[in-house]
């Protein structure tokens, strides 16, 4: 049952083959058995989950079910969910019980989905390996000596290990796509503004975007149908007509023009990832696609630009954690300033403090023009590269990551090496475009490889169609880690 697609689960629930309570309990039992090894979840609360399942069963019996009613979905621990401990992977919020629901959570609640638990993540979503979590690293289900990627590493591991039917993530610089690639699952970061950020704990507000993570493109479409939509409580939420993101899944890819940016296949890309991506492109040609060589000349600047803009926004967003209204307060302190400084020093981990300091520096007097303003200007150039590229192609494809999952601890002491692992994903966030990663093979060590698909603004339904057609002729996405 835990290998079923969302549509199969919905059919089983509607035909009363299984109740939502039974299904939820099945996943809770799997979590109890496997989570001690994987550490994919920070919080499970069977009482809250089963209460939702009970209500879902009543709703199904009354014939009022919709697509996800009764289906257990894991939520990244960045989303506030009323009554649930919501930690954002930080000691700062280790005992914070959210007093309200994020928009994403209330959308799932309205659909009658079950909140199965809160998944582990890099602290405040700052990291690419899940090793910055206060609650310990997540293990990659394909090899527990490897990282699952980050920051949505708990979600990626939970989906790969079948510890939930599907789940949510957030992506500021690759945090959905990179862990999806490293754990062999599918993940979609929508166009900036498609999913409301209300109640999603802020990291870098102009880049943060929530999206679905699941086992197939078809499942992603059903999740995005629930997550997307205008919300006046997020000032950057876009008022748009409701879409059915599954509407084009079955369309033919004949005539599809795939752009291949030469910068994504240059130095730094491992041979095995390059070969898997090339094989995927060959598969697309068989499906009727053609290939166009394109260039994103400024994409090499996306890492420097990102490490100015994201820390600048983070230093501002994280100033709210002062040990007064909520969150951690140091046990001993002198005056008010001392209380702030000690509470923040003890409540934040090393990576978060590093980024707060970078951000504070680049925004400080005398440096603003040289760093922040210059980064915003180059951001414009990076976005323009994509505008130009989409004159010649319908989607852009390339690797999601330069290598397969690296070893736990391998990059722990060197922030710069860690930052470079997001080389192919960051430009998409800077431009605000939708991007996804789908499984496209395995490396020599049997670790998953992801194919990145980048679409034009608001082209999610088309991208899902492109991914779904590939998943009709390949079975990389249905591989299950050994022992799972």
């Amino acid at each position, binding site marked *: 049952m835990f290998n079923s697609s969302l549509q199969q689960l919905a059919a089983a629930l509607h035909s009363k083959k299984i109740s939502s309570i039974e299904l939820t309990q099945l996943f809770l039992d799997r979590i109890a058995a496997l989570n001690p090894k994987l550490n994919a979840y920070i919080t499970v609360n069977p009482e809250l989950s089963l209460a939702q399942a009970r209500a879902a069963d009543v709703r199904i019996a009354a014939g009022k079910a919709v697509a996800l009613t009764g289906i257990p979905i894991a939520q990244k621990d960045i989303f506030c969910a009323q009554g649930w401990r919501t930690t954002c992977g930080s000691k700062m919020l280790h005992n*914070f*019980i959210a*007093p309200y629901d994020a928009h994403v959570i209330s959308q799932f609640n309205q659909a009658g989905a079950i909140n199965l638990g809160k998944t582990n993540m890099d602290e405040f979503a700052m990291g690419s390996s899940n090793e910055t979590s206060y609650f310990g690293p997540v293990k990659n289900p394909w090899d527990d000596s490897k990282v699952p990627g980050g920051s949505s590493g708990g979600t990626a591991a939970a989906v790969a290990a079948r510890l939930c039917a599907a789940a949510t993530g957030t992506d500021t610089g690759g945090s959905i796509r990179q862990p999806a690639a490293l754990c062999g699952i599918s993940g979609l970061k929508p*166009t*900036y*503004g498609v999913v409301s950020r209300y109640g999603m704990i802020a990291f870098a507000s*102009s880049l943060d975007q929530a999206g679905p993570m699941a086992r197939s493109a078809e499942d992603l479409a059903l999740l995005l149908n629930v997550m997307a939509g205008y919300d*006046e409580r997020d*000032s*950057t939420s*876009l008022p748009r007509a409701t879409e059915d993101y599954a509407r084009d899944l079955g369309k033919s890819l004949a005539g599809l023009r795939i752009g291949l940016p030469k910068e994504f296949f240059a130095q730094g890309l491992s041979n095995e990832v390059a070969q898997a991506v090339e094989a995927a492109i060959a598969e697309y040609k068989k499906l009727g696609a053609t290939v166009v060589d394109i260039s994103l000349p400024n994409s*090499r*600047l996306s*890492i*420097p*630009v990102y*490490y100015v803009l994201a820390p600048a926004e983070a*230093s501002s967003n994280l*100033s709210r954690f*002062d*040990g*007064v*209204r*909520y969150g*951690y*307060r140091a046990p001993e*302190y002198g*005056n*008010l*300033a*001392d*209380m*702030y*400084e000690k509470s*923040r*020093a003890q409540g934040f981990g090393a990576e978060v403090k*590093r980024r*707060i*300091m*970078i951000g*504070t*520096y680049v925004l*400080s007097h005398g440096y603003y023009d*040289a*760093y922040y*303003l*210059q*980064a*915003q*200007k*180059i951001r*414009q*150039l990076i*976005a323009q590269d994509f505008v130009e590229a989409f004159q010649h192609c319908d989607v852009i494809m390339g690797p999601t990551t330069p290598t397969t999952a690296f070893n736990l601890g391998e990059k722990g002491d060197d*922030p*710069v090496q860690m*930052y470079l692992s997001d080389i192919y994903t960051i430009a998409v966030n800077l*431009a*605000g*475009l939708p991007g996804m990663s789908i499984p496209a093979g395995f490396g020599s060590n049997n670790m998953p490889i992801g194919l990145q698909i980048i679409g034009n603004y608001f082209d999610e339904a088309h991208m899902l169609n492109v991914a779904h057609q590939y998943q009709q002729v390949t079975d990389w996405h249905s591989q299950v880690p050994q022992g799972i």
Partner: protein
Amino acid sequence: MSLTLDDVHKVARLARLAVSAEEAQLAQSQLTNIFGLIAEMQAVDTQGVAPMSHAQDVTQRLREDKITETNQRELLLSLAPQVEKGLYLVPQVIE
């Protein structure tokens, strides 16, 4: 560009982060490396390029000036580390 220890202490104070001497040493070398990565940006000619702050060209919306939040005083106070008589408690600021 390389940061001095003084720079690190100044930034930490602005960010309200207590740092020990040992942490400041480590931060100095790590932040210097990170600014080395960022330095590549400085050579780019951006004359005449408009800064981009957001992906979508949208302006802030206005809304009707009416109350939309409900009073949740007790719930919100229950999240605070220290409260007394319905107020947040902090060290004395004014003598």
